[in-house]
């Protein structure tokens, strides 16, 4: 490097700009612009030659976050004001729902009721995780209820009537569902049929197949105490309190370790990291929630298997979406198909594979629903199963327009929906009223999403 190439080249370029716009713009304005460029380039000079020594050039317009806990609070307030509400409305909603029903019935917060809720959310929750993947692409999958139903039907018919090993039957059912998802994905990605239409056709076709598989009798009772029947009823260690405590402690420790490791790597690389106070606060919140949950579950029968599997799927899904190239590709396709294609991403494959994932999740969810009712039948997965799952995902904060969301929204959202359903059941409200209330909650969540999106736009958070 000679004296300061940046400054000279910038000045030259600015001078050229002067010639370019001399006819159009007033000379003073151009001079000002040229001066600014030169000054900026000069300011950049030291960064060029000694990047390590100079403080990183921070745009003066950017609000710098203060270090420490005060900064965390400030940042939080600013995010709330700019419409980046995150999970706050859902959590507030959950607390509100729990308070209302506890007040009305007096036994909503009882351990056995809460344990039942955690068991019931597994089926629709797993379907909702699949919907998160599809919504991230900005698409929809209307067939998941039918896919859940036909998978449950296949698993029960194959295991009960044909006497195939139950594990094998589960694999066959999930495999069949993944095949159906691949079919949806193929027609959508390769042929170009809108996803709405493809999956609507799937909804009809697969519920027809469900009836066909079940035959004339229409209901197949699961093997008593078999694998599928136990999915819903099994408690880890047959109710040993150890498991719930262990999971709570393990989860908290892993969470804290992940945060600390990230903090260490970022600090070592000279990047801004979360302040320690924030890490401890987050860990504290996670610890309180998981330990209280463990305590409540242990008051009843311990750690239910459906909850463990649902949580595992949510965590794995979150990991795949946020920490793998494949997850990044899903977000990219949801944010801009053309951009993703030009970045060398195989858009068709991402789309097909996402439909395979959603169908596979639906199959798993269907097995849990079958396990809960003790049989595979013609009605499984029909009615408002699919609608509840889609509503849950949206309530949880995943955008309907693609590119924004996480699998945790499936957990939070389905908790809200199931709490409302269970609470209304407890106060013996008619199902007609239940539908209307659930519908109103869904509408409220979407309104909140739309309003916060508008606030985000005006606050420059897209």
């Amino acid at each position, binding site marked *: 490097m000679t004296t300061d190439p940046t400054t000279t080249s910038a000045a030259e370029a600015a001078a050229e700009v002067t010639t370019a716009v001399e006819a159009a*713009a007033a000379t003073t304005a*151009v001079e000002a612009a040229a001066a600014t460029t030169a000054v900026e380039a000069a300011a950049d000079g030291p960064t060029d030659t000694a990047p390590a020594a100079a403080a990183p050039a921070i745009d003066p317009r950017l609000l710098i976050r203060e270090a420490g806990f005060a900064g965390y609070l400030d940042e939080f307030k600013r995010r709330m004001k700019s419409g980046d509400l995150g999970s706050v409305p859902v959590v507030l909603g959950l607390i509100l729902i729990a308070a209302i029903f506890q007040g009305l019935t007096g036994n909503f917060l009882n351990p056995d009721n809460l344990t039942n809720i955690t068991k019931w959310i597994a089926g629709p929750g797993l379907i909702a995780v699949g919907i998160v993947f599809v919504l991230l692409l900005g698409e929809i999958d209307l067939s998941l209820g039918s896919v859940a139903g036909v998978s449950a039907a296949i698993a029960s018919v194959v295991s009960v009537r044909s006497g195939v090993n139950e594990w094998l039957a589960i694999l066959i059912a999930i495999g069949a569902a993944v095949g159906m998802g691949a079919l949806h994905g193929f027609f959508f990605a390769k042929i170009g049929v809108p996803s709405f239409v493809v999956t609507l056709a799937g909804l009809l076709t697969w519920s027809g197949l469900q009836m066909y598989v079940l035959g004339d009798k229409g209901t197949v009772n699961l093997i008593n105490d078999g694998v599928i029947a136990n999915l819903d009823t099994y408690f880890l260690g047959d109710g040993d309190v150890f498991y719930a405590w262990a999971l709570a402690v393990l989860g908290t420790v892993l969470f804290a370790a992940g945060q600390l490791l990230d903090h260490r790597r970022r600090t070592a690389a000279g990047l801004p990291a979360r302040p320690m106070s924030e890490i401890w606060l987050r860990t504290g919140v996670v610890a309180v929630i998981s330990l209280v949950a463990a305590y409540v579950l242990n008051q009843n029968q311990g750690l239910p298997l459906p909850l463990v599997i649902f949580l595992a799927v949510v965590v794995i899904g979150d990991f795949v979406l946020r920490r793998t190239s494949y997850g990044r590709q899903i977000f990219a396709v949801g944010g801009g198909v053309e951009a993703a294609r030009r970045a060398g991403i195989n858009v068709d494959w991402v789309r097909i594979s996402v439909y395979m994932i959603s169908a596979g999740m639906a199959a798993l969810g269907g097995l849990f629903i079958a396990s809960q009712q003790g049989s595979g039948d013609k009605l499984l997965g029909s009615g408002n199963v699919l609608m509840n799952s889609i509503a849950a995902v949206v309530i949880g904060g995943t955008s309907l327009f693609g590119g924004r969301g996480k699998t945790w929204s499936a957990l939070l959202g389905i908790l809200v929906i199931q709490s409302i359903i269970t609470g209304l059941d407890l106060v013996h409200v008619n199902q007609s009223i239940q539908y209307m209330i659930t519908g109103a909650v869904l509408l409220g969540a979407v309104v909140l999403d739309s309003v916060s999106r508008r606030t985000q736009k005006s606050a420059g958070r897209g």
Partner: protein
Amino acid sequence: MTGAPVLALRGVSKRFGAVQALTDVHLEVHAGEVVALVGDNGAGKSTLVKTIAGVHPIDEGSIEWEGRQVDINRPHDAQSLGVATVYQDLALCDNLDVVGNLFLGRELRRFGTLDEVAMEKRAKELLDTLSIRIPSVRIPIAALSGGQRQVVAIARALVGDPKIVILDEPTAALGVEQTAQVLDLVERLRERGLGVILISHNMADVKAVADTVAVLRLGRNNGVFEVATTSHEEIISAITGATENAVTRRQARLAEEAK
């Protein structure tokens, strides 16, 4: 320019149905050279760029890369050779942050998972060496201004260490200062020894940064000029294709009136 060209097109032709978009086009790009590709609308600039980028395979002719003949049939072929293209419509994902966009399609990994720390560090280094300043590398692209998006798009093209960078109308929608920043960036690319193909309608930009101007007219070569020794008028007449046209008539009239 001395030495063999990095990229050379020899007699390239491309048809779309009944339209002959390119006929027998030649183009050479050397390392450390900025070649401006100019021509009227429909002259074939975009088609030519897309053949290099692998979007449209060529029908006739050949493409040489560092002296040997290559086939470019898919965007992937061009990328693996070392051609990076910045399209006019930027092609950034609005919902991903700057780091995510810079490394989209070639993420750095660690134990099979995304290495966000390494990516963020490299992104900062890259933006620093190019003197690009944006508020934060962790804000979504949707929150950036037009000029900032353009420089991010150009920086993105550099992540894969290309040898040729194609810029399609990089200054079309930018203000005075942002234009200067992008032109600065083009010069920095040249200093780093990259070959740059710059498509522009703006003669001032072309004269500011280009070494060579290649003119296309109706899908054919219509002259290659050294910028330093060529006047504005010569290039304009090569673009419009004749000495007798609206531009020269107007200039003659103005000259007449001035007398």
